[in-house]
């Protein structure tokens, strides 16, 4: 065991009858880093997090949390972690204060300490004034904040976050992202599963992309982008758009694909210089005014799409996917 690692996963496998939900995965998460776990719906993200947190027992393989085996030393391993599941599993019948106090009791914290910690967290999350109100009247964003506060009650070393910002309004998303960054700067290791590739790109030191239960790749977001040099692109916008424009742009030399993104076109290429020349010539020839020209490196989203063969899900598909995943038990 490497003492620098917060999480070590070896051959972790989960089988539901004939379905292999997680297939002998291996990875390590270093202490103090934000580790992103990306993948399409049903890829095995939540199943993995459920095995790492002790909710589900693996069919095969091992996982250690701060050096403690989640199966044979589960109490010690669970003392090291806080968990924020994909659904805010707060007790709606209890107040925010009582939710935190009950969590403190589950961790056998002393009365004085748990009350002090609860107050500290409620203040940090801007919920102190409403702490005596029942949680059932709270907004989704507020429930999410309570859920994160509950996960932090025991001053854990590792925070597992399963889709922490999914379905939240922009303000709540920004608050939560900012909070995760601050906690990470204080030394907390964060294991983050997300559909939001941009979020992963901004926040994670390393990302793993899982697909069909297998790890497709693990690397830093920037290195992953660099490995996909053929996914560079030129973003152009013209003052006027003709119906045949998409077809004509696809005929440019060195362009492998063109994607229309709102009023812009994104020309995927491995030679942006050649495409810039072609674009300029096209504009001149057709008497078009160019209003935007940007060259872009590959995004993490491009890497994700390339590796999984699946375009990232829309919000509606995410909800549908979660329901499907529940039906599968995955």
């Amino acid at each position, binding site marked *: 065991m490497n003492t620098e690692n917060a999480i070590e996963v070896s051959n972790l496998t989960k089988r*539901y009858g004939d379905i292999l939900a997680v297939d002998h995965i291996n990875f390590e998460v270093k202490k103090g880093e934000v580790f992103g776990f990306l993948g399409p719906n049903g890829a095995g993200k939540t199943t993995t997090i*459920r095995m790492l*947190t*002790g*909710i*589900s*027992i693996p*069919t095969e393989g091992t996982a250690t949390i701060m050096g403690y085996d989640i199966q*044979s*030393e*589960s*109490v*010690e391993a*669970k*003392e090291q*972690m806080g*968990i924020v*599941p994909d*659904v805010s*599993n*707060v*007790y*709606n*019948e*209890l107040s925010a204060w009582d939710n935190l106090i*009950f*969590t403190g*009791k*589950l*961790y*056998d914290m002393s009365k004085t300490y748990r009350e002090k910690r609860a107050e500290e967290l409620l203040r940090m999350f801007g919920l102190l004034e409403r702490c005596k109100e029942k949680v059932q009247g709270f907004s989704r964003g507020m429930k999410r904040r309570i859920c994160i506060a*509950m996960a932090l009650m025991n001053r854990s070393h590792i925070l597992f976050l399963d889709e922490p910002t999914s379905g939240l309004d922009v303000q709540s998303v920004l608050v939560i992202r900012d909070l995760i960054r601050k906690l990470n700067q204080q030394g907390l290791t964060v294991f983050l599963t997300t559909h939001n590739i941009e979020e992963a790109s901004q926040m994670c030191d390393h990302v793993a992309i899982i697909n069909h239960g297998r790890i497709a790749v693990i690397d830093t977001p920037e290195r992953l982008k660099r490995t996909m040099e053929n996914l560079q692109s030129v973003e152009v916008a013209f003052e006027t758009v003709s119906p045949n424009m998409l077809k004509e742009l696809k005929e440019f030399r060195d362009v492998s694909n063109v994607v229309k993104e709102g009023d812009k076109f994104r020309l995927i290429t491995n030679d942006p210089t050649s495409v810039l020349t072609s674009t300029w010539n096209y504009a001149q020839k057709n008497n078009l005014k160019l209003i935007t020209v940007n060259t872009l490196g590959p995004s993490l989203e491009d890497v994700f799409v390339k590796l999984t063969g699946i375009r990232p899900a829309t919000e509606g598909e995410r909800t549908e996917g979660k329901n499907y995943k529940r039906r599968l*038990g995955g």
Partner: protein
Amino acid sequence: MSNVRPSHYGREMRVAWAIAAKDMRTYYTKPPSLMFGILFPFSLFLSFSIGRNMPLTTQIPILISQTLFFASSSIGPVVIPMERANQTFDRFLTSPVSLLSILAGKTLAGIIYGAGVSVIPVLVGIAFFGSQIVNIGAMIACFALSSLAFSALGIMFASIPGQTLGQVMMPLNFVRIPLLFISGVFAPIGELPTWMQAVSMLSPLTHTVELARYASGAETFFGPVLNITILSAYAAVFLFMGIRFHLMNQRKE
């Protein structure tokens, strides 16, 4: 469980109590708890007793047994599917506490609910109908062992994977209701055919009814020693099976 170290016992007990206290506060007054734990046994008792020529002092031990049976065994099947649906049950599974302590907390909530509800007919019987407790030890044993065994029965059934009350309550009632007919509730065991007396001995409810009768000074068929032995054995079996089934669920989860 194997991961409970001797130095952790105090902690495990405190956490189990915290879980029980939270369940009491959160779920005791929920409509399903009131319906299956209180309304159900009292309604059954009234439908059975009204119009029957039986002294009320004889009927009180039956009411005590029915409330112990239904109230204690209802809390687990009400609480656990609701917690599964809200994913709050996962909170326990991710806490640094053994599954044994989690289920002990849940069982304790059922014990307190069952015993608490069943004290009402005892007090009413003594205060208004001249009931007597001639053997307090037998009554305490009846309450303690029956509420433990029936609460553990409820926890065992609550291991049935499901997020709705019906998925657990229906199979539980499929077992609970037939037990009423073979446990000396509607007909004294001594009046049953021999083969039914043998079947009756296998029902845990029989021994609750008998102990309650014995504590009230009435004649019993099997005797208190056998009653206590069988109830203790059922409590142990239900607890053990409950833990096994919940562990199996975690493997399937």
